[in-house]
């Protein structure tokens, strides 16, 4: 079976240990985690975790079932193949030389990022977008020398309006 990336949104009780329970389950069952992010939702007692994982259909089925089985999880939605918005934030600190600072700020502009910090050796870019856009920025910046990078992991939500083609039979549809 084919291994595919999946974005899974999990609503959990905003309890002590709920995040840990999910993480423990992933490591205990040997499922991999590409990224995981957690934060508050519109309801203070509920947190939303966005987990990007990979596996074939059978593994993903187990991931979803095992998540559902945890007492602290309220809802598990596999967003893969559904109309959704996905965003990630990256802070990337890159070295610059005298002649290439403009080049870097241009790149930043092209990707609609912001320069959020500067000193006499480095620039820090703040970029938001879907994960593949962040990957692209990283690729372009690598030759300049990346000093440090922090990525937030993906956060995702289903699109507000239920479009007709929702649940497009596991075909990847990603509007950004």
């Amino acid at each position, binding site marked *: 079976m084919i291994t595919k990336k999946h974005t899974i949104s999990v609503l959990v*009780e905003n309890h002590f240990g709920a995040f*840990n329970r999910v993480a423990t389950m992933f490591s205990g069952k040997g499922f991999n985690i590409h990224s995981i992010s957690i934060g508050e939702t519109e309801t203070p007692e509920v947190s939303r975790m966005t987990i990007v994982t990979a596996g074939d259909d*059978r593994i993903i089925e187990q991931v979803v079932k095992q998540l559902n*089985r945890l*007492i602290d999880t309220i809802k598990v939605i596999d967003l893969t193949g559904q109309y959704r918005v996905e965003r990630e934030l990256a802070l990337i600190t890159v070295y610059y030389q005298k002649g290439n600072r403009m080049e870097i700020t241009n790149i930043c502009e092209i990707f609609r990022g912001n320069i959020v910090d500067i000193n006499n050796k480095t620039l820090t870019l703040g970029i938001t977008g879907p994960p593949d856009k962040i990957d692209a920025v990283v690729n372009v910046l690598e030759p300049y020398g990346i000093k440090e990078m922090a990525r937030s992991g993906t956060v995702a939500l289903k699109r507000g309006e239920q479009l007709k083609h929702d649940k497009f039979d596991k075909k990847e549809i990603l509007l950004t």
Partner: protein
Amino acid sequence: MRTSKQMLSGADIFFESLKHEKVKIIFGYPGGAVLKLYEKLYDVDYLKHVLVRHEQGATHMAEGYAKATGKVGVVLVTSGPGATNTVTGIADAYMDSVPIVVFTGQVPSALIGNDAFQEADIVGITRPITKHNFLVRDVAELASTIKKAFYIASTGRPGPVLVDLPKDIINSVCEFEYSDKIELRGYKPNFIGHQNQIKKAANIIKKARKPLLYVGGGVIMSGGFRELRLFAKENNLPVTMTLQGLGAFPMTDSQSLGMLGMHGTYWASQAVDNCDVLVSLGARFDDRVTGKIEAFAPNAYKIHVDIDPTCIDKNVIVDLPIVGDVKHVLAELASEMNEPLPINDWWDQINAWRKEYPLSYETDDGKLRAQYIIEKISEKTKGEAVIVTDVGQHQMWVAQYYKFNNPRSHLTSGGLGTMGFSVPAAIGAAFAIKDRPVVSISGDGGFQMNMQELITAAYYKLPIKFIILNNSFLGMVRQWQELFHAEKFSFTDLSESNPDFKKVGEALGLKSFSVDSPLAVDDILDETFNYNDGPILIEFKIVKEDMVFPIIPSGATVKEIMTRRLDPKEMV
């Protein structure tokens, strides 16, 4: 029972809550962090506290009690080492889906994380081996947490729940009210199987010409054994059981094929290999059952009934899943179909397999053998005893040779395979079972892992029959060393180091015997089953090198089944 709202201490709330949960017995061991609870316990008269010798013993006792009765087993221990000693028992209960609630003391909230005396992060430690666990952070949440713990442990697929109680929570005071309601929006076990799926299953089974029911512990846990008997009998269906399923269907019934799997009967293995419809009822396709996954029941349409959706398609991909309580599903299936299937050819085939390789062992050499002793125990108790086994060869021989007639009569550590389970689990069972003998059967290795609990049995004068089948070896490991590890009997020979078990028994307060001749078995068993003033210990010195047959090697197929020890000449 106090019902109106009133101010109570955490310790009072604890015992009031247990009273509301109708807890009759707790297995425990006092210590610093639970002193306040023990202070209250001193005056509590509505439940019995059993003082164990080691906290692991307490957890297995709770398991034994729970498995024998279906009620929740309760454990109370202190923080730190008291809590960590429960880990093996909790993991065991998790693997075998046994409803227990373990209360652990914890250092005061303000000291958590400070490496305080007898501090351990037991909630963190037990997270992957509990169905759920709680750290109580406010005395106002204590009663509702206890309610949730019992609810979670006993519903759906049962399992262990741990509640960690910081010392300050036990000491502080709040208003007590025991609500009937539970708010757990993330936990809604599905009890009713999908009607259409059940109808579809019935139609498929009706058309089967080589059907087989594969029955697991879920049938016993759900209380669905009457439904199973009705369904199997009315439709003329063959029944094979897993280790945990033994007793769900009477093994003396001609429709029982006995146990399946690695050490299952030859005819059960053949039936699995050849069936056209396999109906799994409350079983989880464990690797000890399936062997090589791809070759398991290769020609069968597979129907899988389980209350836990994660069990479906986990090991074996099935054709028709039904998520729901197996008792309910069986009742529905029985109402959909109640005519004997015309499967005489299939029965003829199964009975031919029965004759081809019956269970057998050497009887003519005058040596004492485990199989003979177990057959005798089965005969003398008429399959009505509660048999509590440990882990290893004796466990498999009991599964093969004891003819279980009733559910909740075969208590064993299956999933985790915990040596040292039998002695304490039998004690837990004996506190509940008074009308039938409770027999603990262990090997010499496992017996030594929790033999301190004999003291508990002697102190409470429990009429348990402790049987040690002593072959002076870690027999199952020895067997694998002989078959698969070049006969390197590495650290499995205990003959030089074993204690004198008769003396051990006597020193710990038990009437004790040691027997080494098959001729003495009848008399000693008669004496054992007639003695009811307290525990009794019998060591049987059995032959050293016997092996459990049949065996399908790990990860192999039914084609590779070994039914007997090969002569060296036959081995190439």
